[in-house]
């Protein structure tokens, strides 16, 4: 293994570790929301500092590799992809923190019936499944796993589009719970963003392995 190979291997390990950390943040959001667990929400806030610190470290490592080794071809694509994956993971972490803050700010748990109307469980499960596919794709350099993410993101987009109408209807039905509806709408938006950011990650993985650019509506096949 050359010196560059060992640096790239270490960078990949850091990226996978960041990925797993962020996955656990999103997973804890499910517990926080459904059990209305403030302790778990606070844990998410504390762990967010680790996510931020790791993001800075990975950025520095990418910078050092570019400066010291002048990588080319797949190695260059990997470092460029790592920079963007890192940034997207950090933003997923931000969104998870935002969701945890909603749980801490409301005085009462979200009624189960509302969590169902807003498809919260479905959104979280889809996000987690997408993040799992992304970790698999990154660890195994598996672009098929990366491509599975696109359809799942479509499902999240569909839910996101539907909840505005859901919210309007609910406000008309029960305007004493408007704050809950607004909070849930915001939570749905955050999960939709997590989906988008995970899709961005899969696009970067495909870029680094296949040298194909899929941003801005390019053909996914």
């Amino acid at each position, binding site marked *: 293994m*050359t*010196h*560059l190979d060992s640096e790239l291997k270490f960078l990949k390990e850091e990226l996978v570790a960041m990925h797993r950390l962020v996955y656990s943040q999103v997973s804890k959001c499910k517990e926080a929301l459904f059990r209305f667990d403030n302790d778990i929400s606070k844990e998410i806030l504390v762990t967010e500092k680790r996510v931020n610190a790791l993001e800075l470290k990975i950025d520095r490592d990418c*910078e*050092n590799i570019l*400066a*010291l*080794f*002048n990588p080319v071809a797949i190695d260059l694509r990997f470092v460029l992809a790592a920079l963007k994956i890192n940034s997207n993971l950090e933003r997923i972490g931000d969104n998870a923190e935002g969701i945890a803050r909603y749980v801490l700010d409301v005085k009462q748990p979200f009624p189960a019936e509302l969590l169902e109307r807003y498809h919260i469980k479905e959104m979280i499960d889809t996000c987690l499944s997408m993040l799992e596919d992304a970790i698999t794709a990154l660890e195994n350099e598996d672009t098929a796993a990366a491509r599975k993410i696109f359809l799942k993101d479509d499902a999240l987009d569909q839910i996101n589009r539907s909840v505005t109408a859901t919210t309007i209807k609910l406000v008309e039905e029960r305007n004493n719970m408007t704050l809950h509806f607004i909070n849930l709408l915001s939570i749905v938006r955050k999960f939709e963003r997590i989906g988008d950011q995970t899709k961005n990650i899969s696009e970067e993985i495909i870029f680094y392995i296949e040298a194909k650019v899929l941003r801005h509506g390019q053909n996914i096949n």
Partner: protein
Amino acid sequence: MNKIETRNVNLYYGDFHALKGITMSIQENSVTALIGPSGCGKSTYLRCFNRMNDLIQKVKIEGDILVEGKDIYERGVDVDELRKKVGMVFQKPNPFPKSIFENVAYGLRVNGVKNKAFIEERVERSLQQAALWEEVKDKLKKSAFALSGGQQQRLCIARALAIEPTVLLMDEPASALDPLSTAKIEELIYELKNKYTIIIVTHNMQQAGRVSDHTAFFYMGELIEVDETKVIFTNPKNVRTQNYITGRFG
């Protein structure tokens, strides 16, 4: 721990002031790259550590140069012993007109080693350390000139390693080699630093980035900046360093 230290070293070639007040430490088991434009004093500085400048007429040196804590320019220093401890590899591969085996064994023989088994073991070990053994083990009696340029340079490294130095000085060791041989030499340098302290002069900044832990930038006889290589190549403190590494002068 500092393997080598220089304190306020000034060197003159007659009236020409070639090194100006160089104060620098070099850590043990590390690779330090000396970079800078032609004529800035890099090779002159390198040659201070094994007193090769003694061979040049009208050279005057002031200041302290310490290897393993001892001033190597003190009266009574055995220069031959110093040069065993501080080995050197030059830009152009310079194997002796002898067999591959004898090239590596030469240093041992001139130091009075006669034990055949010892010499054979040491030759094999040195060629392994220089990542050349597998390529030459079946032709040790062949002339060193039959080897390619890259192989000859690795042979010269093996020759230096045979007498068990603690410091290796390399003056542009890969500049005369093709890219593949250069890559092999660079990987070798990266592995050797676990056992040796290596100082390398290079005009190739990317090479300095790839192989070294610390980089020292010289300009017109002065040491402008020395730091961890990743700092020099991501955020140098001196604007002259930045201008040099970005190709804006030199």
